[in-house]
């Protein structure tokens, strides 16, 4: 398993470069990376890319077909669909990043406590995870929207509640596995307390796989956000979201199908891109699949 010193030194490429090479060698990985880059750049430079104010209403120009002035046409209020889709990418990315980071932080902290803490604490926290997880997302969303009303924050709370328990369970299991590792015992024998052990020795050992998992959840969150917004539980009009674009187009699907296509295609492509990239990344970084790591 472990190479003698001189052989290890003979491997020139550091692990990160090797992982990148591996990723780019995979055609699906390249395709995924390209789609994700387009999505990210669109989201970041949305203001510069969008030709019109996405909320500017122009009733006389309503439901126009795609043209050079309006690439994806206009909706029932005469708003430029292309601008709405471009700004929708930003909302999608925002929700995904904020919600997944919060879910990672919350689930991670609780998972560490459950995994490293006493058995009774573990039992309580696992019960909490399972209880929260047993609510179907949509039912939970309905209940929450009834309580606090639909908004971007509601979507984030729903996503955090959906994902934090899964991350928590993963972190808990990994922590439990590491808890009895000999190097943890060795650290304790040198006087390290629980906080130091967790921060310096447990977390660095589990963040890698956890980040890959989280990156594979980005498309799922984007879909959830679009779905909730489509149902009217999420982003409120006039804020542009792929879900609200889909909802607007849905009513006119017979006459003006471009609206629903314009809202749906980016959703499909970004989901596809993130999934391909995530899988390629996992293959590239997982040491069990790579010999030189």
């Amino acid at each position, binding site marked *: 398993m472990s190479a003698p010193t001189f052989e290890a030194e003979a491997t020139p490429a550091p692990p990160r470069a090797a992982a990148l090479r591996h990723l780019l060698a995979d055609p699906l990985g390249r395709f995924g990376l390209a789609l994700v880059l387009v999505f990210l750049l669109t989201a970041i430079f949305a203001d510069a890319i969008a030709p019109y104010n996405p909320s500017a209403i122009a009733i006389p120009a309503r439901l126009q077909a795609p043209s050079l002035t309006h690439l994806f046409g206009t909706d029932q209020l005469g708003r430029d669909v292309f601008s709405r889709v471009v700004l929708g990418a930003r909302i999608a990315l925002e929700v995904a990043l904020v919600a997944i980071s919060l879910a990672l932080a919350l689930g991670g902290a609780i998972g560490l406590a459950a995994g490293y803490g006493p058995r009774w604490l573990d039992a309580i926290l696992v019960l909490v995870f399972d209880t929260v997880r047993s609510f179907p997302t949509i039912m939970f969303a309905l209940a929450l929207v009834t309580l606090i009303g639909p908004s971007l924050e509601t979507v984030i709370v729903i996503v955090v509640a959906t994902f934090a328990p899964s991350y928590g369970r993963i972190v808990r299991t990994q922590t439990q596995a590491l808890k009895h590792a000999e190097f943890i015992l060795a650290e304790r024998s040198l*006087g390290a307390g629980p906080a130091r052990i967790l921060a310096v020795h447990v977390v*660095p050992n589990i963040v890698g796989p956890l980040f890959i998992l989280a990156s594979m959840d980005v498309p799922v969150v984007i879909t959830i956000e679009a779905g909730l917004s489509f149902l009217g539980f999420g982003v409120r009009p006039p804020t542009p979201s792929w879900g609200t674009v889909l909802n607007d187009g849905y009513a006119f699907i017979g006459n003006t199908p471009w609206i629903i296509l314009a809202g749906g295609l980016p959703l499909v492509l970004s989901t596809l891109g993130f999934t391909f990239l995530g899988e390629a990344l996992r293959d590239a970084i997982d040491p069990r699949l790579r010999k030189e790591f």
Partner: protein
Amino acid sequence: MAALLEIDGLSVDFAGSQRPIHALRDVRFSIERGRIVGLVGESGSGKSTLSLAILRLLAPSARIAAGTIRFEGVDLFALSEAALRALRGERIAMVFQDPMSTLNPVLSVGAQMIDVQFRRADLSRAEKRARAVAILKRVGIPDPERRIDDYPHQFSGGMRQRISIAMALMSRPDLLIADEPTTALDVTLEAQILDLLRDLRRDFAGAILLVSHHLGVVAEICDEVVVLYAGELVEQAPVAELFANPRHPYTRALLDCDPGRLAADAQSFPTIPGRLPDLGAPRTACVFVARCPLAFERCRAEAPALTTVGPGHRASCHLLDG
């Protein structure tokens, strides 16, 4: 002056499925400053349990049933977790058996050695790094300035054990517990690590408790030997005395089994027939009775007490009662 470490009447039980397993029973001995004490016994004799009990790092299923361990007169079992933590690594440090698993695989050696100096708020990161480099050089890591940023998997087993020892010695502990530090290594590396420990004792002036199942290792560097059998101390003696004049039948059998002491033309390896007794059973006889070639009536009826048979030499056997 009191001994550095005094173990007095220590008994440790593990929770068994039906009844507790007595891993250690009424063990008592002490370690003087600057001495190397060997702790010898076969697998399952309680050697590791004893080392972990000193640092109070036993698994949750273990329970100190009786006895005390005093370090410089302070009862370790009465200390708070915080006070213990202040002691671990600072005054008492430990080196473990398997160097392949005692270093964190995802942190560079330097990062771990800098982190382990977390108590030294007075030192800058660069100073901590310099100390780490210096001690790595001391334990014989070639080119430590460059290699300190390597990860554990880039070092060989012997090098990793040196790094573990370096980490344990970082704060010049008064007592170093080395739990089979050479068992996972091959013979040449074993000799190097033993040399290193012997040198280090001279430099660091601390005591070492060297746990081993290998008598050759013990003969090599220890001043004193404690022999454990089935969780009981059966014999303790200065090293030369033990090898020249073993008084307990188990010690004699153990010496006979040492491949290093076999005649060159020996046709077979001697073994000790039988196996360790049931550690869960209450003790009404000598622990070694089932395997003892000299056992007689009294050995089955009562357990022998430790008898002093010479200066610093104690053994527990009915035959010694004269």
